[in-house]
């Protein structure tokens, strides 16, 4: 399994120490884990008792308003962008933040690229598992540069005004390149 690099909050690469677990794999005793929504729902008893953190990958057809409130207490939720032009998770992100989710909200998938992460960030997504072909430092600039912030439109949508003062960390993850 790859062990991605990460770029943290406001502009630095950090190590991604979360492991995405396939539905058939055994749950390891230690380490940060990401499980599917299905697996979380069927094994909620054991997974919620785990000492190390467990995050959940939400399919982009999941109805945010019907999620168990306990899910909003998770430290990490991962939103899926399965195709470059499939923007459903943008709205899921808005709904999660509006419903009070304050943890790390991560984007994964084919659309997690330079040309989209600024929009994702503005919809409340706080960390980015970059597609493997992406230039990580350019992606950090896209969400932190002053120039980039000009693409924020008329100012009706700054995250702070939208979510009534809530802020969250911004991190960007890039998969480790083969040479690393």
């Amino acid at each position, binding site marked *: 399994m790859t062990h991605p690099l990460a770029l943290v909050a406001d502009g630095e690469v950090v190590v991604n120490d979360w492991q995405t677990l396939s539905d058939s794999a055994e749950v390891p005793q230690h380490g940060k884990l990401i499980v599917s929504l299905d697996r979380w729902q069927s094994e909620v008893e054991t997974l919620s008792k785990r000492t190390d953190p467990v995050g959940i990958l939400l399919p982009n057809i999941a109805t945010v308003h019907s999620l168990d409130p306990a899910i909003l207490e998770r430290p990490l939720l991962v939103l899926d962008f399965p195709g470059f*032009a499939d923007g459903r998770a943008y*709205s899921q992100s808005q*709904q999660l933040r509006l419903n009070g989710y304050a943890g790390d909200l991560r984007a994964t998938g084919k*659309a997690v690229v330079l040309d989209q992460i600024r*929009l994702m960030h503005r919809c409340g997504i706080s960390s980015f598992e970059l597609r493997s072909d992406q230039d990580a430092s350019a992606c950090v600039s896209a969400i932190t540069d002053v120039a980039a912030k000009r*693409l924020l439109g*008329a100012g009706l949508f700054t995250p702070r005004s939208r979510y009534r003062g809530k802020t969250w960390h911004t991190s960007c993850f890039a998969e480790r390149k083969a040479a690393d």
Partner: protein
Amino acid sequence: MYRYNQQDQAGVEARVAEFRDQTARYLAGKLPADEFRHLRLRNGLYVQRFAPMLRVSIPYGLLSSKQLRMLAHIARKYDKGYGHFTTRQNIQYNWPKLETVPDILADLATVEMHAIQTSGNCIRNITSDPLAGVARDELVDPRPYCELTRRWATFHPEFNWLPRKFKLAFSATTSDRAATRVHDIGIHIVRNAAGELGYEVYVGGGLGRTPIIGQRIREFLPEADLLSYCEAILRIYNLLGRRDNIYKARIKILVKEMGLAAFAEKVEAEWQQIKDGPLKLQPGQIEAMKAHFTSFDYEADAAADPSYSQYLERDSAFAAWTKRNLQPHRVDGYHLVFLSLKARGVAPGDVDAEQMDAIADLAERYSFGELRATHNQNLVLADVRQQDLYPLWQQLVRLNLATPNIGLLTDVICCPGLDFCSLSNASSIAVAEEIFDRFESLDYQHDIGEIKLNMSGCMNGCGHHSVGHIGVLGVDKKGEEWYQITLGGSSGNDASLGDRTGPSVERAQIADAIQTLIETYLTHRQNEDESFLTCYRRIGMAPFKASLYGEAN
């Protein structure tokens, strides 16, 4: 008109820089072609049959002389010297080079213009009544509301990757001139019984392959809730709209499949959560926007001018033009002047760079330096004193912009067709020209009266054929051009979709067929005041069908 603030200007410039970078990455092979396609579409750039096509946004159709001169400059410098006004009140250039598009966008940005979101599956240019602000039957000027909505929609982070394109239109008059019922969201600004301003909201209308008339989702939405309610509609659509089939991805299909009540319930639940949030319009916000659209300093004694009536008596050609191409202005002594872009031998909606420059001068001289593009693909000078009408008309005649055919048969709505578009099955422009020749006699056209002839080269319906009183649609039959005809469509308050006459007719027969339909109408109408549409609604399809197909047998 609305002028950019610093933030708007910086945003548009940053977008140019972003697109320049995307174009460079694409040309260097660092950005996959399919991804660049999505990104360029969101900057107005299509790749068409022969060359790229760039669509420039004209929010609610309003332009300044300075902006029109820039459009002329772009036509000259980057294109073949002309542009094409569209049914979304935008302008398209058909021959730019992909490599130069970032430069075109940079030029546009210097006059507060752009091509952002004029294509792609996002919120498109917001359209409205081309007579906004000066119409006599207007409740309020819809443009401040359009502009607030434009600011909300532009760069909206959540709605840039929708299932399909999304179009909004506003109307604030008793007669709908913005075709609101065939939009994804159509908004009528209204007053309720208590005298409060608000909106009647329609959803799920649209043309194209499956034309549907929008349904009323809300009878009265309070004035402050415009943006939050639109946001709720868009969010439900973004989450639930179909993405498996491009032809079923518009909101009209979602509303149809869910049913209006179920869709409205979801919107309502979403809206309740956000209605009192930051999207709620504050009174100061609306007033500040209205201050951008204050009325001009009209002369109180403009109606006292005696020359206008003298010219009317003296010059019958001028008088004929005033009958067709003027509309009443809310201030006495002023008129709305339509510049017809439907002259003989010119593709409907086309204007060349010299005409653009000349129109810019005329607008400055006679109409406070502003003009409007209409969804019928004409231009309007909205504030002309009656004493200026005669000299203006003389200059328009010289410019070939004074054809007195507004609202008549040759004032066709028409898509670019086979000549430009890679989707088209029909030479819609050539057919339009043939019809022009057939009905060239203006007396005959005047006798026929108000009629909307709309033509599209393919099912996508860019020429709005489904809502033409007579609609003509190009279809492909084994490589040959055939034309399907519909009757009885309308995009006004009485919006309806046209009914098919029957089997399609071949290319060589289409002008004859239109003539047959017109003659049938003339035979059956009760009197000269009964329009084609009213007559069709009274007598139905049978007489038209009989004359169209009976004769052929």
